[in-house]
């Protein structure tokens, strides 16, 4: 591993942005593996209650307090596996909360079933601190189905209502997702035109 890390620091021209991003992450990992965690910094995160999760695809806000630091522009990352897919997000600059502690926040789509994640922070001296590992797991995957007991009075009528209610709920979620997508498209337009 040390060999890899030394190699990473050689100056080699890289053409692709993907490779640049890869290099950047790898350098972070190498530094992480070779550094002692900065003792002074503490990462405090209160995990969401899975019962409060919105429907999959809706946004959740994750936040982490960086204690024993006065910086709001540290490099903080969220490394996660969401529904089996890797996710590695750099958090935007933090802000002080009411207790005067820097808090970093990020919004991301809620998982369909489960997400495991950790926060990683790099302090100004180059040291790294890794938070505990958190697991956010739904007890069940949300559906929009309605059922009518077979022996219900007016079963056919209730079935019709159930179908309508199911459609209405599903359309509500769909619209919400499209509105989120519109917001992201707007965001991307800005990013790509900068």
């Amino acid at each position, binding site marked *: *591993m040390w060999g*890899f890390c030394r190699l*990473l620091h050689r100056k*080699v021209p*890289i053409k*692709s942005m*993907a490779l640049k*991003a*890869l290099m*950047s*992450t*790898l350098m972070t*990992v190498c530094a992480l*593996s070779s550094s002692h965690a900065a003792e002074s910094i503490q990462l405090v995160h209160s995990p969401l209650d899975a019962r409060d999760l919105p429907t*999959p695809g809706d946004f959740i806000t994750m936040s982490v307090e960086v204690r024993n630091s006065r910086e709001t522009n540290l490099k903080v990352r969220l*490394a996660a*596996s969401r*529904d*089996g*897919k*890797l996710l*590695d997000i*750099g958090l935007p600059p933090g802000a002080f909360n009411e207790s005067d502690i820097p808090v970093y926040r990020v919004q991301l789509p809620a998982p*369909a*079933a489960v997400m*495991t994640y*950790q926060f990683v922070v790099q302090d100004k001296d180059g040291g790294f601190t890794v938070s505990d*590992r958190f*697991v956010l*797991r739904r*007890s*069940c*995957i949300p*559906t929009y189905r*309605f*059922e009518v*007991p077979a022996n*219900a*009075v007016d079963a056919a009528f*209730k079935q019709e*209502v*159930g179908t*309508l*209610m199911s*459609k*209405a709920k599903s*359309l509500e979620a*769909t*619209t919400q*997702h*499209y509105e*989120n*997508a*519109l917001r*992201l498209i707007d965001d*991307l*337009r800005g*990013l*790509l035109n*900068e």
Partner: protein
Amino acid sequence: MNKHFFLGLVPFLVFFSTAVAQPRVRSEIVVRVQVESKSPPSQVLGLVLSKGSANQEKDTKVTKIGDYLYEVLFKVPASTIDESSVATALVITKDDQWIFGSMTPTLVSNPDGELLNVPECAPETVSDKIQQGHVAPFKSLVDIRSARADLAKMQIGRLLSDEFIVKLRKAEQLFGVSRTTELSADLPPAELVDRLARLSDAIRDFKKSQQAAQ
């Protein structure tokens, strides 16, 4: 940059992976990872990542199981698995694309593996309080919501104009977040959000690292 150099480095990329696995009482664990790829794989690596180490398994078997779907199978000595282990696979295609497979649910206690075991929520029951006269408002609600969803989709279609969608697709490829299905307004809405969010994060991250380098 030498491709093999990167191959050696890739396991560390996934070092942060947070899924957990429990050892089994078997000497070898068979890992199956599904990978989406438009082009046939030319090189395949099985990757097993544990807290302090990363192992590559070059002895892999690749089977085409769908139009663009491949299954990578490899064996891992049980002794190399610990509680932090997680497995995936890296496929390098003939046109030199790098594609990671999903985290395998084969390692039974991997929380992500439980995706397959999480049941659907029980359906709600239609209340007995609903009466015949309530059907019309529900129909109206469905019509209104349907119109709203159509409008939002139309707006997305308009915003994802030819030029812009080409830009986004190119960016997905550049940042390594491309998938087999092309980005378009016709994707399932939750997937569309996921793809756009990933792309937005990747671009923002890249810009930040560029600024830091200056």
